[in-house]
């Protein structure tokens, strides 16, 4: 399985999904015109990864901004990791926020609540 690497743009995050290390990173902004279209290849990749995952998976989410249509896509991405977690695999979700950015901290708490899975929510050092 090949890694999925997407370069960041002014409206989309950098994405780095590595099947060998099990580290999946999302970083930056997500305010694309069409969020569903943007996230489609990510969903596909994750569906394949869930079939043959690493022993442990680490998910690092470090968003600067995201719009509300991306918020739904991010939830769908996270649901795929929860699915993996429910198969008994070790999945660690780290949610990073810029110090003082309480809104981004709350966003992480909201996702953790909805998914009923603990996140490591921490300021960027």
């Amino acid at each position: 399985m090949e890694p999925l690497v997407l370069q960041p743009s002014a409206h989309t995050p950098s994405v780095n999904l590595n099947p060998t290390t099990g580290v999946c990173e999302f970083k930056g902004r997500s305010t694309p015109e069409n969020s569903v279209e943007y996230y489609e290849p990510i969903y596909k990749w994750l569906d394949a990864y869930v079939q043959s995952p690493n022993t442990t998976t680490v998910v690092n989410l470090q968003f600067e901004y995201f719009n509300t249509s991306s918020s739904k896509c991010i939830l769908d991405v996270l649901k795929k990791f929860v699915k993996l977690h429910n198969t008994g695999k070790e999945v660690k979700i780290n949610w990073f926020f810029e110090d003082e950015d309480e809104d981004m901290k709350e966003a992480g708490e909201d996702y953790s609540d909805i998914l009923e899975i603990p996140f490591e929510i921490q300021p960027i050092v």
Partner: protein
Amino acid sequence: MIDYLSIYEKMHDNNIMLTFKGEVTFDLINSMLKIIESRLDMIEGDLKTRKKVYNVLVECLQNLVHHIDTIDPGEEPSPYHSKTALLMITTSTDGYHVVTGNYIMNDKIEKLKDWLDEINSVSPEELRDLYKKILNNEQFSEKGTAGLGFIDIARKSGQKLIYAFQPVNDRYSFFSFQITIPKNYLQAQSK
């Protein structure tokens, strides 16, 4: 000649950071966001406030581009072009104000008004629960929107949504929307 000096002075006195009237496209939105972001970097020292303004602006602009009503040619609601919208960003000692204006079909007013009133009537905790509920349960609309824009604007700003519908004719009205993002020292006081 038009008195441009008085227009300039009015814009200056109202602390207008940016004003736009015209057809709204994604490319245009992105250019405006870029301008505002660099302006905010210069004038607003507080990261939290900068991010709130940017976030609220993103949602306001995306609301505009997704919800401007398409009106058939020959059925213009008024001499003014129907697909165009108004955007204004101003500052005051209270905070940053984002104003949008666009045409809306009359039969869509009630639903929108009920939604805005509902958002205005609930507590911050209830608003957060409502956000989570919609985020988790609702499907995307045909336009690819999540139905969360106005809730997000209310949550990030911590303010009530101010709006008005001005009738244009029996089919169309003009929808004006205003939100204020308080400056940080005021956010602290209100807690």
